């Protein structure tokens, strides 16, 4: 039993990403979408929180949203995996529930 969490707000003006991370269970996945993709940036103040949860929680970023904001693979934390819209659908289908952190 696992949960897909989606985060669509920048972690620099909103606590959604940190709250999400603090409520994740091992085996869950976090998908960063829309302004949430800023949470994938390497060297940011939330980097530590993301890296710390990454061993037990898979972190994904929606490729189109990241590219749109200039967050290419080189700017991202290596722990963050990239998915397209098809991968988004797969994540929804392979987890038991989806929880949006608005």
């Amino acid at each position, binding site marked *: *039993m696992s*949960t897909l969490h989606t985060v669509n707000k920048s972690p620099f003006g909103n*606590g*959604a990403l940190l*709250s999400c991370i*603090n*409520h*994740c*269970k091992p085996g869950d996945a976090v998908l960063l979408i829309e302004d949430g993709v800023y949470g994938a940036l390497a060297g940011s103040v939330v980097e530590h929180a993301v890296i710390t949860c990454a061993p037990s929680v898979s972190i994904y970023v929606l490729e189109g949203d990241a590219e749109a904001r200039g967050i290419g693979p080189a700017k991202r934390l290596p722990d963050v995996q990239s998915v397209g819209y098809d991968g988004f659908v797969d994540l929804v289908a392979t987890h038991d*529930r*989806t*929880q*949006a*952190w*608005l």
Partner: protein
Amino acid sequence: MSETKKFLYVNRKAPYGTIYALESLEVVLIGAAFEQDVSMAFLDDGVFQLTKGQNTEAIGVKNFSPTFRALGDYEVTKLYVEMESLEERGLGPDDLQEITYEDEDDDWEEKPSIRIVSRTEMADIMADQDVVLSF
């Protein structure tokens, strides 16, 4: 088809700055008609929705905090409030209004609907649901 699912309504927003909190309460009250196993979670700024002493007279919007006390009549009797979220805001359980329900399985005894839980317990509650709706 009478399969009951576990629904959790997650509230993370303060009551009057945005419409989320009021809309959540409206959806819960409407959804209550579908006889599912409904719980509500209050964390982060969502804990401000349940505080005592709200008076919206001067801002010209409805004070909907008393409406939470009607939830028991709709069989919504599990209001989980995260202790860490309260503490981070300088609040404690005593700052919340009293919300009760009458337990039909226990001679209609009046019982508290608000259950204070830890962050870890809240994560467990979230992971135990069939459907999570966020506001």
